[in-house]
């Protein structure tokens, strides 16, 4: 009889503990799952230092890889090789391959200067930025430069070697 009473007290205690622990688990579950995971947040303009870093790098790369003179074609190509990855390599070749040939053959120069950079997305090691740039192209012997306003969307990937461009979309 004493054993039975003791075991029934034990069961009541266990039941109370079970209810409390289940309630705690439910409360923690609701609290945890109502918050977004860090990977679900777009940190553009939320993590200001990283936002500035990716914007600066996008500007630096854009200024360099989209600018050349007949004398700097090799340097421009080298910079492109160092800063472009994945799809961006073929996209750049399609956009700039013909122009770089013209630089050698016709003495074409192109000066690209970024006017504005806006970071749209910044998640983990991925970022997308919108770039406005002004372009001035000039052929040797011609005193009339052709001017253009470029709108480009860039996709960037953070590697061990810093931010690299992995996608170029001209808007």
């Amino acid at each position, binding site marked *: 009889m004493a054993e039975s009473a003791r075991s*029934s007290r034990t069961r009541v205690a266990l*039941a109370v503990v079970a209810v409390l622990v289940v309630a705690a*688990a439910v409360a923690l579950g609701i*609290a945890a799952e109502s*918050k977004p995971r860090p990977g679900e947040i777009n940190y553009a303009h*939320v993590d200001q230092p990283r936002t500035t870093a990716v914007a600066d790098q996008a500007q630096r790369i854009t200024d360099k890889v989209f600018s050349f003179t007949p004398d700097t074609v090799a340097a421009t190509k080298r910079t492109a090789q160092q800063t472009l990855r994945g799809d961006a390599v073929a996209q750049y070749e399609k956009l700039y391959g013909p122009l770089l040939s013209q630089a050698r053959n016709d003495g074409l120069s192109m000066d690209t200067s970024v006017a504005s950079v806006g970071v749209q997305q910044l998640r983990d090691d991925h970022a997308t930025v919108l770039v406005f740039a002004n372009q001035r192209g000039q052929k040797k012997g011609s005193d009339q430069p052709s001017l253009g306003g470029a*709108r480009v969307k860039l996709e960037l990937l953070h590697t061990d070697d810093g931010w690299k461009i992995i996608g170029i979309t001209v808007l």
Partner: protein
Amino acid sequence: MTNHVDVSDEPETADEPETAHEPDSSDEPDDADAGGGTDRGRRSWITVGLAVVIVLAVAAAVWFAIRLATAASGADHEAAEERDAALAAGGRAVVTLNTLDHRTAEDGIARWQAASTGMLREQLAASKEDLIAAVRKAKSRTTAHLVAAALTELGKGEARLMAVLDIKVRPAEEEPTTKRARYIADLVKVGGEWRLGGLSSVAVEK
């Protein structure tokens, strides 16, 4: 399989267990299983069940506690929502200020004013009559579509937006034309609402 046999045996011995129980359970533990239907057996199953529930719940609580500790901070979440609000409102405002129909010119300019603040709003108020007269004279309809937008800066109550728009102009007689334009807009938060404080088309420098 063995359980099955035991349970089916039960009814035949159902008359005797009350007395046979105590010695049985100590001598032959196997028989305790056979008494799954008795009070005592049921109680021990309840105990085991409760223990299992507690273990599972503790495991779940620990898991959720870790999830909670590694969740994004509430401040970051709010900042992200603030950015999205500025971006969305800014994009809408730039589209609004590039939309005008000569048939509803007054309403159109009123919408421009409602979307703007500060200097821009004052300028619009000052040139309102001229703007309406001009669009009525041209009998044109202008609509805009937002192609892309991004913030270049985001501060407390202030932001700067860059936007790419396709602007379609339908003049009275001629064919409609669509041009893609770049804009930079200054956004100011007024009474919890983002408005345009300044808007400039980014022309190609000549």
